[in-house]
């Protein structure tokens, strides 16, 4: 048996953390795009789109992310597409992220007074112009802190991709723990690495939140 020093463990975990970060970014960017489109569709059409939107959010917020990953993994295979675990994990995490971001952003847009819509409507602005020049610039300001805060949830969420075999930080931790017989050290390190990635983002989100609060007063 090979002897693993703590440094060996840490080095291997750092390599694996790269994939945690890549997967997080895919989910965050993809989820942002899908969530943004959902929200725009809802703002544009209302009516039945509202129900679809609410159902979508409810579905992804009301079921375990782990189940979403399983369904993505086995569902894609059932469809006959033999895809890599990259695709399954990215798909599930993107949809999961999109539901949460769409809901967060919906709240931010709802916080913009109705009068802003009415004033821009009465000035003959089209829906797209209203969104681009009046609503989004204002909504964006309040949306940034919770959005950054949600990035932490996404990063932690990627840990579940380990269960369907995606090798990232947690999966690497499992594998290393199995060969080193040092589960305590390994999982402490794994936790530490997540903390090192997430904590600064949490602090930054909190800082942004305080800043927007002060600015709005």
């Amino acid at each position: 048996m090979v002897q693993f020093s703590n440094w060996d463990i840490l080095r291997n975990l750092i390599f694996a953390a790269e994939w945690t970060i890549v997967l997080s970014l895919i989910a965050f960017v993809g989820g942002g795009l899908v969530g943004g489109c959902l929200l725009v569709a809802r703002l544009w059409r209302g009516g039945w789109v509202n129900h679809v939107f609410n159902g979508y959010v409810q579905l992804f917020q009301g079921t375990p992310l782990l189940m979403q990953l399983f369904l993505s993994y086995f569902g894609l295979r059932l469809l006959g597409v033999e895809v890599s675990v990259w695709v399954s994990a990215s798909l599930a995490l993107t949809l999961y992220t999109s539901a949460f971001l769409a809901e967060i952003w919906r709240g931010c847009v709802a916080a913009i007074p109705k009068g802003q819509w009415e004033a821009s409507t009465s000035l003959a602005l089209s829906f797209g112009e209203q969104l681009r020049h009046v609503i989004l610039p204002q909504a964006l300001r309040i949306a940034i802190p919770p959005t950054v805060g949600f990035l932490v949830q996404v990063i932690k969420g990627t840990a579940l991709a380990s269960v369907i075999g995606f090798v990232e930080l947690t999966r690497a931790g499992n594998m290393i723990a199995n060969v080193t017989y040092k589960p305590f050290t390994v999982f402490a390190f794994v936790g530490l690495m997540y903390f090192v990635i997430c904590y600064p983002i949490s602090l930054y989100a909190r800082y942004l939140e305080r800043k927007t609060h002060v600015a709005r007063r």
Partner: protein
Amino acid sequence: MSLAAETAPVAPIVEIAGLRKSYGTNEVLKGIDLKVAPGEVVAIIGKSGSGKSTLLRCINGLEEFQDGSLTVDGKPLLTDSPGAMRELRQRVGMIFQSFNLFPHLTVGRNVMLAPTLVKKRGKAEAEAQAKALLERVGLADKFDAMPDQLSGGQQQRVAIARALAMEPAVLLCDEITSALDPELVGEVLRVVERLATEGMTLLMVTHEMAFARKVSSRVVFMHLGRVHEIGPPSEIFGNPQTPELKQFLSSIHE
């Protein structure tokens, strides 16, 4: 003057016939008929909840109505056609009780936004126009200020300039001084009065009875979703016909 307006050969700029509007089962407008000639100043008075705001909001399509017809400049209101609505809204400006300036844009940009986007005006031209309009409402020096640096009266005057920038044929004013401290009401009313004397067509909901009496060519008294009484201000204020109007006026004069 009002009689002249009724019989004048000029086409009405706003023509409302049999307008009905409900929220759910609550009928708020129960058949409104009203013609407004170009250059007329119509004051709309009445108790809170009588449907004054709803009527104004129907005229520029912020609310859809269920029955009746509404034309502006001879063109019917087609709420299901966004293109037609944009055309119409370029002819109808609206000023709100709560100003509704865009807080993230400077005063100048507030005024320039719609002309540059909708009328595709060049930046220099839009800027010159915005400066002229701000000058007209007495705020030439506030071009680069942010809305939250202004008093309520100043904000409302910017809102007027912003609406005028689209060169509307009709201006709708919904209680535009109600959110203001008493000492700021005058500066806004003076701007409106000047617009009236310059020939702008105005439909204004107001609680400033002295102002309505002085500036308007006709007064509409709304009650329970209907035009209950209509006539020149001297008649409406000096010789009210219905008990409802009498009661309303006496409740104001308290």
